């Protein structure tokens, strides 16, 4: 076993750094020379389609898998050397966290805290704090075996935070949850802002838009971009008119065909009574769209010029 002093410490100031991380499974390259930097204090969204390499990256960071080449550092300690000491500095929640069904939340958190070397007094205090944070006090002595998906996920976050980690690594924390559970978990993640660096992978773009301040997009094992959410959205011009129709029956009328024929209109998306019209010539669009729509007999409650959504950007980048 090594002391902290014996372990190589990075000089950079990032919560997570990956340098040329690659992972091959036979002939399949799950990760290709991935470079990534997650600044301290950020809520970092690691975005990618299913099979993009998100879970592979996270499992390497968590010490559960080894890279074929490259290295990764979490909170200043090299995680890719699978040294167990590195794991003291982060908390990890896998995509489908599994607990011992015969344990209660208090027992599991106590076991987790023991593995991090917390004293009896610290354990008691942290368990109470964590149960309160994830709102599981009322079921703290019930067997985990009977918990719902949302409760399991919240317990997962509690066990990942029990030792005051500097970094919290979450793999698709909301993908298996119903809307209520998703809301709860996102609120919880947002509440951690400023207290711990959160690195979470997801393919749900709404989640990223809601809570993340920094975003990286990974596709087929390669990092396509890394940027603050605002910079990313600012890079893309305000080129989309969002129209709210008076009722959704209008959304599938002949007007759509007429609009699609306009050379300055790029695409039209409808969702219930919301129509998103992306234009190629913003000046022309702002001048001509409203009279055109009015002339087609559509009753409009609201019109607003907006940026493309993260979903639009993601689809464009990872196409």
């Amino acid at each position, binding site marked *: *076993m*090594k*002391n902290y002093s014996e372990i190589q410490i990075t000089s950079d100031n990032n919560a997570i750094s990956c340098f040329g991380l690659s992972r091959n499974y036979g002939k399949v390259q799950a990760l290709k020379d991935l470079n990534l930097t997650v600044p301290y204090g950020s809520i970092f969204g690691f975005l990618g389609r299913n099979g993009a390499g998100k879970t592979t990256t996270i*499992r390497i960071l*968590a*010490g*559960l*898998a*080894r890279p074929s080449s490259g290295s990764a550092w979490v909170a200043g300690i090299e995680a890719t050397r699978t040294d*167990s*000491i590195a*794991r*003291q500095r982060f908390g*990890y929640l*896998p995509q*489908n*966290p*599994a*607990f*011992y069904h*015969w344990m209660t939340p208090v027992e599991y958190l106590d*076991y*987790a805290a*023991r*593995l*991090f*070397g917390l004293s009896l007094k610290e354990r008691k205090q942290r368990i109470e704090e964590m149960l309160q944070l994830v709102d599981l006090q009322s079921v703290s002595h019930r067997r985990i075996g009977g918990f719902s998906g949302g409760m399991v996920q919240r317990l*997962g976050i509690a*066990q990942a935070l029990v030792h005051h980690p500097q970094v919290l690594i979450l793999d698709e924390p909301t993908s298996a949850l119903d809307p209520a559970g998703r809301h709860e978990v996102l609120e919880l993640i947002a509440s951690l802002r400023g207290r711990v660096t959160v690195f979470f992978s997801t393919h749900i773009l709404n989640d990223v838009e809601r809570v993340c301040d920094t975003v990286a997009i990974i596709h087929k094992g390669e990092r396509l971009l890394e940027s603050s959410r605002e910079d990313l959205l600012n890079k893309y011009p305000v080129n989309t008119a969002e129209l709210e129709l008076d009722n959704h029956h209008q959304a599938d009328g002949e007007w759509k065909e007429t609009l699609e024929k306009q050379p300055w209109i790029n695409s039209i998306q409808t969702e219930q009574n919301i129509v998103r019209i992306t234009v190629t010539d913003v000046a022309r669009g702002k001048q001509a769209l409203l009279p055109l729509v009015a002339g087609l007999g559509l009753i409009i409650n609201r019109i607003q010029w907006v940026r493309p959504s993260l979903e639009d950007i993601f689809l464009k980048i990872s196409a």
Partner: protein
Amino acid sequence: MRTLKFTLSIFFAAVRKEIVQQWRTKRFLVLIAVFLLFGLGSPLLVKMTPELIKSEPNGEELIKLLPPPTAAEAVASYIDMIGSFGYIVVILMGMNAVAGEKESFTASLILSKPMPRWVFVLSKFTAQLLVYTSAFLIGGLTAYYCIVVLFGAVDVLLMIKINVLLLMFLVTYIGIALLASVLGRTVAAAGGVGLGLAVLIGFSRNIPHYGKWTPDGLMVWARELGSITENVTANPGAIIGTLALVLIFLIGSVVLFERQEIQ
């Protein structure tokens, strides 16, 4: 030293969790029941054999030809029971240890914490050793008590010697079950590997010159002690061979587990 203390605290926490798990999932009770059955069943069966024969047609005539059952027969029956079924019980109960955690994905959460993988594996072995030894002791004491009650006094030291050899024989299979559990991705696969390895160990007694140093050598020694004769050949080579095998299984389990990717 601080690091060693920390590692030891993790080890003891893991052993404690394993023992509590054996109790809460009723595995410990099942083991106690099984070894109680071995300890109680063997002397009872030997004692009741004449009665069973008597109940058969011409049994009364047949029984006159047979000598009355003895303590030595009861001890031999107990040894055979452990030798024939004990190792299967150990493998069936132990195959879940690592494979079960891999299959249910509980291992990934635990191994993302500062628990070294060797601690994960060895804590399971240690806990199983303690739990199985406790259950075995209960079975052994029961066997001794029943034999004394049913057949008269038996040398305590002799019974202790026999039980130590039997326990060492079973410890080999704790090691086999652990290695199989590391090798198998699922509990069922681990069970298959474990029974396969057990068969191989069983065959190893036929290796010329070296066969007597295998765990089976311990059984032969225990049977000789159980026959309560003057001429018993001590076989320390079997103890050394068995301990070496257990060590190989443990090292193999740790090395293989260190190289595995955990899902």
